[in-house]
């Protein structure tokens, strides 16, 4: 059995009196894409932010590749974890190249590395080089999201966290992006946690799945197993509804 990219053991998290996550146990296999699927309010975004140390758990343990999330200098921890979000969140005052390479330059990576890595990523994501000097407001929604994914992968992260990056895109753009991303991810063989509310996206991109509802894990396991033997009615309804 290969190691876990991410492991949560009996994790509890609350904001005020409200428990957002209750006794969460899960394990994302290394080198694969794990989808965390749930409706809004299920706690799936909070889950991501426990992994990159934006929040800390009230109880339980969160580890990435066997290492617990540190409490000091957390920003250094985050640098080894790629992050992309719905709407891309590109820095509006920086052009495409600077958006992608900002952190690499700040951490003192060599120019050659930066240039080569930037070129490889943008080409893989189908971004033409004449976009290098464009600013975010001059890009289409799909282009912005591709830039966002390039930024997330720039420093060759050991883990990639995706917070619904494909949600706001129209279906055709999304389909193209699935293909581009999946190919790139496979080549980089980076462990990925994808948060989504779209069961179809899970089918398209993930090998492993975590179903979250109301802060509790409903079922977790390989995708085929979950589809074959849903643990409860909620899990069954997630996929059956859409394929009737």
């Amino acid at each position, binding site marked *: 059995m290969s190691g876990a990219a991410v492991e949560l053991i009996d994790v509890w998290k609350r904001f005020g009196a409200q428990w957002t996550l209750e006794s969460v146990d899960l394990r994302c296999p290394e080198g694969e894409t794990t989808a965390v699927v749930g409706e809004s309010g299920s706690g799936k975004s909070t889950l991501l932010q426990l992994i990159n140390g934006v929040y800390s758990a009230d109880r339980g343990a969160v580890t990435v590749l066997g290492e617990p999330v540190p409490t000091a200098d957390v920003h250094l921890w985050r640098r*080894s974890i790629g992050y992309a979000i719905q709407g891309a*969140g590109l*820095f*509006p005052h920086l052009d495409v190249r600077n958006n992608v390479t900002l952190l690499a330059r*700040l951490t003192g990576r060599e120019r050659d590395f930066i240039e080569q890595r930037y070129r490889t990523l943008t080409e893989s994501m189908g971004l033409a080089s004449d976009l290098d000097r464009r600013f975010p407001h001059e890009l289409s929604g799909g282009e912005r999201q591709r830039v966002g994914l390039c930024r997330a992968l720039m420093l060759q992260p050991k883990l990639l966290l995706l917070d619904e990056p494909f949600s706001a895109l129209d279906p055709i753009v999304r389909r193209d992006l699935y293909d581009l991303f999946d190919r790139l991810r496979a080549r980089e063989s980076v462990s990925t946690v994808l948060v989504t509310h779209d069961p179809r996206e899970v089918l398209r991109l993930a090998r492993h799945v975590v179903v979250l509802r109301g802060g509790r894990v409903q079922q977790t396991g390989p995708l085929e197993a979950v589809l074959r033997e849903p643990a409860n009615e909620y899990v069954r309804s997630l996929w059956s509804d859409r394929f009737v």
Partner: protein
Amino acid sequence: MRRLLVLASLLYAAHATASERIVVGSKSFNEGYLLSEVIAQMLEREGFDVERRFGLGGTLICYDALTHGDIDVYVEYTGTVAQAVLKLDTTPTIDELNTALAPRGVQLLHSFGFDNTYALAMKEYRARQLRIATISDLADRHGELNIVVSHEFLERGDGWPGVARAYGLVRTPGGIEHGLAYRALDDGAIDVTDIYSTDGEVARYGLVVLTDDRHFFPEYRAAPLVRTALSQQAKDAMDALAGTITAGQMQAYNARVTFGGISYQEVATELLADRGKRNDRGTSGSIWPSLRHNTGIHLRLTAIALLGAVLVGVSLGIAVYRIRWLAKTTVYVAGLMQTIPSIALLGLMIPLLGIGAVPAITALFLYSLLPILRNTVTALTTMDPVVVRVALAIGLSRVEQLRYVHLPLAMPAIVAGIRTAAVISIGTATLAAFIGAGGLGDPIVTGLALNDPHLILQGAVPAALLAILTELVFEGVERLLVPRHLAAVTHDAG
């Protein structure tokens, strides 16, 4: 320690010779300017180094400035010292006043001679017609006369109520704006009104001042009020005109300033020449040197205040914006500061910082702070939350988030705040002249006191031009600092 004291007093003694620097202040009304200028010119004749800080508002500001050592002398009136400073009901002699003033480190020198008190006046021909020369005469015939006095005189204890009691006047007169009373007298609409006995209007309108034969009105004898610590030479120089100016002469000099279109500096020179004290220091006819001087001071006041406000406002904004309640409180307090009327804020500075550039810059700084602080905080708290989250999640340190993401995004709003602060400061700085900081407000304050529109324009026009110029400069700065795509993104933060 003792040796140090000896050395200090030696230095002080050496300093207190003819090259002693003497700061002359003045109240902001025409006679105040004129007599202070007379004192300044007399001191210059004797070789003293003189600095003028004229137009310092009323008694309160001047007296405070004197006791704080911000000025060394200004012209005060005995009645005012007795009532406003010492809170006495009576007006003692100058010697008695000096006994009371001694613990405060100030003293009155000898009076110039005339008494500028409240008085009742009427047209000369009318007085002759009715054979009225004294207030007692007036009392005998006041039933036939239309007596109208200024609103303030009507209310003050040492005004109408007191006169009426002292002379047995039974009719209550009407009230009028002081400025209109002279015109009304001239038109024959009214017969008698209250005046200050050395007003230039007395001569101008052919008025006669009724003798206060029962000595009701307190004496307001003008005399230099000085810091006791001044050297005897300086005091002697200022005493040289003791008892040489009559009320009638003072009226004529005041009239030359108010109606003759002659600057108070020139009239002061005349007044000295009339008393055999020629002053060779010619007054310059060109307005350019003073304009350049005033503009320079104005820019310096504004620039220092603005620079301070940028440093403090932006840093404070950065320090508090992550903590919502603190950011709110800070902006609220800065907003409160803005609601203090500027003239009151300047006044409040005097007990703390005295007069001159320091309190003026402090007040301007406090005014400039709000727009800069508010825009900084607003811009930093209204950033796109997705961008903020990404900056955090990709692993930028706190400082890096600020330096490479938050501040660049907030820059357009911050620059807009600085621009607002700059324009406000340039306008408000004209009021700094009231507390002796100089600048383009100087000619405005003087012009207002002397009713001289030319002087007012000499300050107002360049101040307005400066404000417009500032707008233009900042437009350029914004174009340089704020790329177009950002101006669109964060425009609403301002």
